[in-house]
């Protein structure tokens, strides 16, 4: 399982995403560029240039035609995946922390952060127009959720709800039609750093600075499983196939890294058994904290992006698929 090193960014990675088929990998970083890669060999397909601030987030629709990105330059942009053209740019008052296409590709969720007196917003834009259509400047829905800052968010099953993770470690269920907070549950003790849905969006995994990752049921916000580690976590992903695993990663705060050895930094991707809550393995390689993890939708490879500016794509060996957890 020799990893492929994607060296296309000059600054730390913020998010990486596979498309639905898993042949493409999109990565964004603080260096203003969105990169697209062939996931099987690490060749770069191209870049999407236009942002003038750190890009925080990226998402691709299920047909791999539209790409959305959100940046600290207070814009969210919509790109044509095939030619890299920017087809729409929305301007906001503050930085965009999260973008996410809905399950049916009709809507785009955008989270902006509160800053300089502007409140945080959760906005939903209609992107039904696709590549050719006009995209409205006005959102279909906008809410100003109260309480602690929202750091991560994702669509729930059937586009009914939006799940948002907050700075205080709580997760909230927001009705996608009305914008009301339906329920809330404080599952972590520190800020949430990532939230990724399972394939059918009925449960999701959260990672937090409190050194734990948790599986949570979407409908009830009930904690299903907990994975407790010895380091602050930045990302967590659920393996969709082959093995009942989750992959979590993180490491010492970036600001403390220079003061400690790589060994102590714990910059490893950890594999945990999803159901038995037991660690099964670790993958080393990054020399900075791991900021983001994505798993191939087919479960054949996974990629991790680190503070060190690299994306490492790992293809699993055959014995990974035949591995059986001794029960």
């Amino acid at each position, binding site marked *: 399982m020799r990893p492929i090193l994607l060296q296309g960014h000059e600054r730390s990675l913020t998010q990486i995403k596979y498309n*639905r*088929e*898993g042949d493409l990998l999109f990565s964004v970083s603080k260096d203003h560029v969105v990169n697209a890669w062939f996931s*099987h060999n690490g060749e770069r397909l191209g870049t999407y240039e236009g942002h003038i601030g750190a890009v925080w987030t990226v998402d691709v629709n*299920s047909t791999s035609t539209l790409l959305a990105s959100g940046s600290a330059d207070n814009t969210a942009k919509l790109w044509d995946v095939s030619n890299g053209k920017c087809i729409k740019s929305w301007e906001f008052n503050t930085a965009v922390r999260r973008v996410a296409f809905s*399950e*049916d590709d009709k809507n785009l969720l955008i989270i902006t952060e509160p800053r300089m007196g502007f409140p945080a917003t959760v906005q939903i834009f209609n992107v039904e127009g696709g590549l050719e259509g006009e995209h409205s400047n006005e959102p279909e829905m906008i809410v100003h959720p109260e309480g602690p800052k929202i750091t991560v968010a994702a669509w729930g*099953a*059937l586009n009914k709800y939006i799940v948002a993770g907050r700075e205080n470690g709580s997760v909230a269920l927001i009705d996608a039609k009305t914008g009301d907070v339906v329920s809330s549950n404080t599952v972590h003790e520190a800020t949430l750093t990532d939230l990724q849905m399972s*394939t*059918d969006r*009925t*449960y999701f995994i959260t990672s937090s600075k409190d050194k734990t990752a948790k599986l949570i*049921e979407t*409908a009830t916000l009930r904690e*299903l499983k907990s994975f407790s580690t*010895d380091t602050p976590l930045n990302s967590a992903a659920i393996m969709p196939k082959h093995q*009942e695993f989750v992959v979590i990663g993180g490491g010492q705060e970036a600001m403390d890294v220079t003061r*400690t050895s790589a*060994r*102590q930094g714990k910059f490893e991707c950890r594999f945990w058994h999803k*159901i*038995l*809550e037991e660690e099964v393995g670790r993958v080393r390689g990054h020399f900075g904290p791991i900021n983001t993890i994505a798993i191939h*939708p*087919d479960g054949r490879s996974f990629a991790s992006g680190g503070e060190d500016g690299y994306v490492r794509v790992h293809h699993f060996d055959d014995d990974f698929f035949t591995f059986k957890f001794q*029960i």
Partner: protein
Amino acid sequence: MAPPRFDLNNLPESEEDIDFSDIEERYQLSFEEGFDNVVVVDNVPEVNEAKEEKLIGFLRKIFKNVGEIRPGHFVMPKAVNEKGELMSKGYMFIEFETAEQAVNAVKLIDGYKMDRSHTLAVNRFTDVEKYTNVEEDFVAPEEIPFEEKEHLKSWLADEMGRDQMVVYRGNEVSVLWNMQKEQSHVAHSKTHWTETYVQWSPLGTYLTTFHQQGIALWGGESWNKIIRFVHPGVKLVDYSPSERYLVSWSNEPIVIPEDNYHGPFSTEDEGNQIAIWDVKSGALLRTFPSLAPTSPNARPTVSWPVFKWSASERYFARLTPGVQISVYEAPSMGLLNKKSIKVDGVVDFEWAPMSDADRELAKSGKPKDDMLAYWTPEANNQPARVTLMSIPTQQIVRTKNLFNVADCKLHWQNRGDFLCVKVDRQAKNKKVTSSNLEVFRVREKDIPVEVVEIKETILAFAWEPKGERFAIITTSDPNFGSAAPGTTTLKTSASFYYLDKGKGKDTLQSFKLIKTLPGKSCNTIFWSPKGRNVVLATLRSQTVWDIEFYDLDFEPLDSQATKVPTGGEKDPSAYLRLLATGEHYGVTDIEWDPSGRFLATSASVWRHTMENGFQLWDFKGQLLYKENLDKFKQLIWRPRPRTLLSKDQIKNIRKTLKQYSERFDEMDMMSSSQVSSAERQRRRKLLEDWTNWRKHVEADLASERAAIGAPAPALAQATASDEDNEEVDEWVEEVIDEKEEIVA
């Protein structure tokens, strides 16, 4: 309402009949009160009126220094004797301004020799009153019914012969059973059990916990508190070798609060910092002050233990650096021969440990004398000197003069057979240092001394427990001594020595090198408590955490190695074998378990915060168990008491070891399968729960999806089609032509 004291129909007839006892009781003056500042002086010369004034003047002078005497309260009663003379009665009363002055008078003047026949006896008036009021008839104290106490050594009766350890992490102290490869079983656990750290007594009977008010000892199967010792601010404790006495040290001098004090200390103990206790009864035996700092500006330092116990527990001694060794007797706590042993310049001393034979003798009531070794540096044209002294006779048994000595360290072999003095020498130019070892063979006649020259600086020295071998770690690294410790890892080499008995009767015994292992980085030696196995480790380094396991009696499987052709004599180095090398990242402490089968390495948060936790190894160097614990602080094995088996019994067990090992092997098998079956069941349950939950959720989702008429996501088909266009790279190698050429 209280019943009336008398009734009108039955009035007492006369005054005598009236019961005044209640009134008397109420208004009686307590002798304890009001006379605190009065002392009684006995053995005062009996004089007539003519001499009285002179005597009083003389006595006043004596008492003047003690405190202020109230005017007119220097009373000497007089009476007319048979001869008709008015003579003093030979005692007097003195009233001081304060009670403290009275106490002081007792302390200082009691026993004062006025002249040959008159030794003043000073007592507090209240004391005299108290002791004369002792009841004449002896009343036997109430017999307290015997309460059976828990068996304090119950852990030794463990069926599986496991050892215990105490682990302290965060606020939690747990006593654990060593389960080898599995998670240790908790024997007892408690949060906030101690405030600073924990300590076992030397035979493992008690667990010592530290608190602001004092220390507490715990033990038995239920882990109840057995006894506690009140000593505010206690920081350090030390047990005597057979845990009969306990020495505690506090950085706060003892203070007696003004009123309502129920503690163990009395006014005489005020200001002292060291207390000696009887462990079984909990009684305070004596307190001692800390040594005053040598120079007025020096910070007071404590080298613990302050009191070193002799192996027999009959004596304990304290060193006043450069001046004297004070040997005290236990349990009387008195200074041996009422004076300290003056040794000019003495730097350090160590008691000789006891061998098993000595212990037998002591048990039969004929204990051998204890022995201590001390050394003095060069001074006033006197060479440095190591001296062996027998206690209590204080006879000097052996001395050895040494030259150019920079420092000495005394190392007794744990049975007291050998004393090795590690001597660091300094050449005249004070630059080059070298070490050598002076080995005293204490059991032999006249105690011969042998010198083992070592060219390099010795970093560590350790005797094999109960053995005749020792290991040293030496270095010639130029960084030694220059760099701050911990910053660089020194290059070191490890050497092992053994006692060559010689062949004939006449040949001299001598210590010979087994082997030197160069190019190491280790700096500490850990012998297994049973000897034979030794672990060399690199501690307190920031880059290397090596742990090396050696066996000194390794039997090579191929018999050839044993038949080294050096005159039939076996080569000891053939038996030295590196068994395994391990690494424990960030290791700070290493300890063998008392059976010598397991080794615990731990990384304590007290030294750094990296990967705190502990690891268990077997003596072969195999890692058995590893646990990382946040805020892990301490792991100590519970010591075992000395074996009760005789030598023959041990030999017998060695012979029939197979029988025993079979039993234990079986038990091992049983326990591991038991544990895993429980674990298996738990896992099965988890998996079952998960699949049930998934089924339920998936059904819900499907029905909901159908209700709103949303199409099922096209994931399944997509992945199926994915399989088709999978790229396969195939490399085919074909040999076109093959030709062989000879290159000149």
